């Protein structure tokens, strides 16, 4: 780190009357730069092809920068008062020391060491311990005001020596100067100060120390107060802290990152008890997979309306409707089904408390409590006014990243309009939906619409959604009943019919639609129609029954008559038959008699004729 005998800048022994080395030219010669690059590559993280980077460990920042800050170079972090520059620098060092084994030196030109320690304690960083473990070195440069001007030439070797000593004591690879422009306020002759600062940056570069330099920004068109951004040309990051309509938002922007592609947008970030979190979501990502797997909605007939199989996994679903139409219920059914499958679910509640949601769902037979206990379902409830829209986006991003759910519910999304304009809400939702799709998370967004503008007001948001369920209250016959349409569902055939849905003690049921002469019938109109139809059916059946019986009766009559006729006939037949046979018999007897008679007569005559034998047989 620091070479011993020669001066702190390693420029060789100046004892021989040599002047302090000439100020290096502002541009580096190509040869010098190549040498620096090849030297640095040995100790760097493998990330960019062009420039080695030092990972910061700050959530989201390494993604945006493609690996971290430029290694061995100074990075300028500029921002207004309270924008988080000091915390940025500290977190950079603390994580460098604890996560990447790179000790660091923090030169504070404004805050005292106890103040610093207290500030970062709220982020969970134990500065005292790190200093004691020789992982960090903290030095507070407090310059007593020089009241009477300088008495001649001077330079800032004192400062250089302090930094060099600190670097050597812990073997630092990272340095933070916060905020070096204070020197301008304390020391006379800004010309000298500028030149020395430039010399310092070059020395830091020579030593291969990745440096963060914070500067205060007091005017929107300038990055620094004293123009030292000229000397820091590798990377410039801007931190912004805005208050708009009483909501504060923090944003980070990479103004410049030489040699590296970077997102040029503003990224929202927040500072919480785990440090700084930057939201690395860019709105350019339309590059996510389209899984073909389907998941059940938790309501059987709804699956039926969606091509028979339910939603696509990883799709975005909008359930919109006026107040009280059952949007949260639909979301809860989906979550219930997901947890039953063993999928983790994350429920963002922006309107009701989790306890209230659980209680309400229990009343229709859906018990979400066991899933919460098993850790499959997590609720996060907060009104968006708590932090503003970017904070909401950040928090949701953080929670999703740490919980890794398969299903997410945002209920309702329209509450975000309380803290933002429609454009911003849409922009935020675009990013959120992109993020969710890249993670393959199936999401239901509920949206409260104003009565009478059901489809119009959702036009902005609905184009982000793959499936749109429209929930309606139908007013008919003095009643309001709930109904559901599948307005659109990309990539699948879906029902175009309205269905009534009813919340019963056993859950949510979708019922068939009844079309009466007035149109769709729901509620008691449906019930009465059902009854009427049932009555018609019953009546018909009864009629049929009656007819059948009549037929039966007629047959029996016919058969009875048949029997009777037959009996009569048989009786007569018998009589006639008898008569016939009698007369036949009579006839026969007569013939027989006559025959006999003839015979007997002939017998007489014949016998006389024959021989005059005996006397004639006795005549009978």
């Amino acid at each position, binding site marked *: 780190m620091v070479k011993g005998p020669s001066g702190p800048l390693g420029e060789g022994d100046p004892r021989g009357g040599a002047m302090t080395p000439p100020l290096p030219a502002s541009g580096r010669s190509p040869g010098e730069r190549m040498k620096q690059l090849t030297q640095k590559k040995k100790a760097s993280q493998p990330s960019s092809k062009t420039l080695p980077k030092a990972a910061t460990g700050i959530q989201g920042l390494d993604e945006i920068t493609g690996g971290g800050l430029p290694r061995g170079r100074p990075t300028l972090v500029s921002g207004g008062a309270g924008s988080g520059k000091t915390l940025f620098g500290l977190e950079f060092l603390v994580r460098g020391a604890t996560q990447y084994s790179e000790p660091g030196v923090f030169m504070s030109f404004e805050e005292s060491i106890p103040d610093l320690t207290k500030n970062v304690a709220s982020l969970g960083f134990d500065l005292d311990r790190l200093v004691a473990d020789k992982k960090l070195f903290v030095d507070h440069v407090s310059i007593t005001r020089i009241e*009477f001007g300088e*008495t*001649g030439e*001077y330079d800032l070797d004192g400062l*250089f020596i*302090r930094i*060099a*000593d600190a670097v050597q004591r812990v073997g630092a690879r990272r340095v933070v100067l916060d905020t070096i422009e204070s020197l301008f306020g304390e020391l006379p002759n800004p010309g000298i100060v500028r030149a020395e600062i430039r010399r310092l940056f070059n020395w830091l570069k020579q030593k291969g120390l990745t440096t963060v330099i914070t500067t205060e920004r007091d005017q929107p068109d300038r990055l620094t107060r004293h123009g030292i951004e000229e000397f820091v040309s590798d990377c410039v990051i801007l931190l912004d802290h805005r208050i708009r309509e009483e909501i504060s938002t923090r944003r980070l922007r990479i103004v410049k990152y030489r040699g590296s592609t970077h997102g040029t947008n503003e990224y929202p970030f927040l500072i919480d008890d785990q440090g700084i979190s930057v939201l690395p979501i860019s709105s350019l990502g339309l590059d996510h997979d389209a899984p073909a797997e389907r998941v059940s909605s938790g309501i059987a007939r709804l699956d039926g309306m969606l091509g028979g199989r339910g939603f696509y996994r990883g799709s975005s679903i909008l359930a919109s409707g006026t107040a009280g139409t059952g949007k949260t219920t639909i979301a809860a059914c989906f979550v219930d089904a997901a947890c039953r499958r063993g999928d983790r679910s994350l429920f963002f509640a922006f309107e009701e408390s989790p306890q209230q949601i659980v209680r309400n769902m229990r009343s229709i037979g859906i018990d979400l409590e066991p899933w919460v206990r098993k850790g499959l379902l997590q609720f996060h409830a907060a009104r968006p006014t708590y932090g503003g829209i970017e904070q909401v986006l950040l928090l949701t991003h953080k929670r999703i990243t740490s919980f890794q759910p398969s299903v997410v519910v945002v209920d309702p999304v329209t509450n975000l309009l309380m803290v933002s304009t429609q454009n911003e809400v849409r922009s935020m939702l675009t990013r959120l939906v992109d993020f969710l799709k890249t993670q393959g998370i199936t999401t239901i967004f509920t949206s409260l619409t104003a009565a009478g503008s059901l489809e119009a007001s959702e036009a902005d948001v609905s184009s982000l959604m793959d499936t749109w369920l429209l929930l309606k209250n139908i007013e008919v016959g003095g009643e309001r009943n709930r109904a559901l349409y599948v307005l659109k569902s990309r990539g699948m055939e879906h029902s175009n019919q309205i269905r009534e849905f009813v919340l019963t003690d056993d859950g949510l049921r979708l019922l068939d639609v009844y079309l009466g002469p007035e149109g769709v019938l729901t509620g008691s109109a449906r019930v009465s129609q059902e009854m009427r139809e049932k009555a018609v059916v019953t009546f018909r059946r009864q009629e049929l029954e009656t007819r059948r019986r009549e037929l039966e009766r007629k047959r029996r009559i016919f058969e009875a008559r048949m029997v009777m006729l037959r009996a009569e006939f048989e009786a007569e037949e018998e009589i006639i038959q008898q008569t016939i046979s009698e007369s036949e018999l009579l006839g026969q007897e007569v013939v027989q008699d006559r025959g006999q008679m003839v015979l007997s007569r002939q017998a007489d005559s014949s016998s006389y004729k024959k021989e005059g034998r005996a006397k004639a047989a006795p005549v009978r």
Partner: protein
Amino acid sequence: MVWNLRLYVANQTPKSIRAFANLKVLCEERLKGRYQIEVIDLRENPQLARGDQIVAIPTLVRRLPLPLRTIIGDLSNSVRLLVGLDLRKVDWPSSGRPT
């Protein structure tokens, strides 16, 4: 009252040499026999830079008599040096700043 003056230098740069020379001249002129000059080479004692909060080189600190006075530069501007060491009365113009 023996004056205790500490001159912080970093190696024997021309500035440091000049500062020492200038200081010696002044002390012989104004404080003969009642001064004590310590030269601290911060490169040999870097922790003193931290402890005494030294940033600029050369820096002259008048430790006695109190109050502590800090003067930076190679001490070539003797007017400022005298004013800084409080060895010269100052005409305060209406602007309130010493010339």
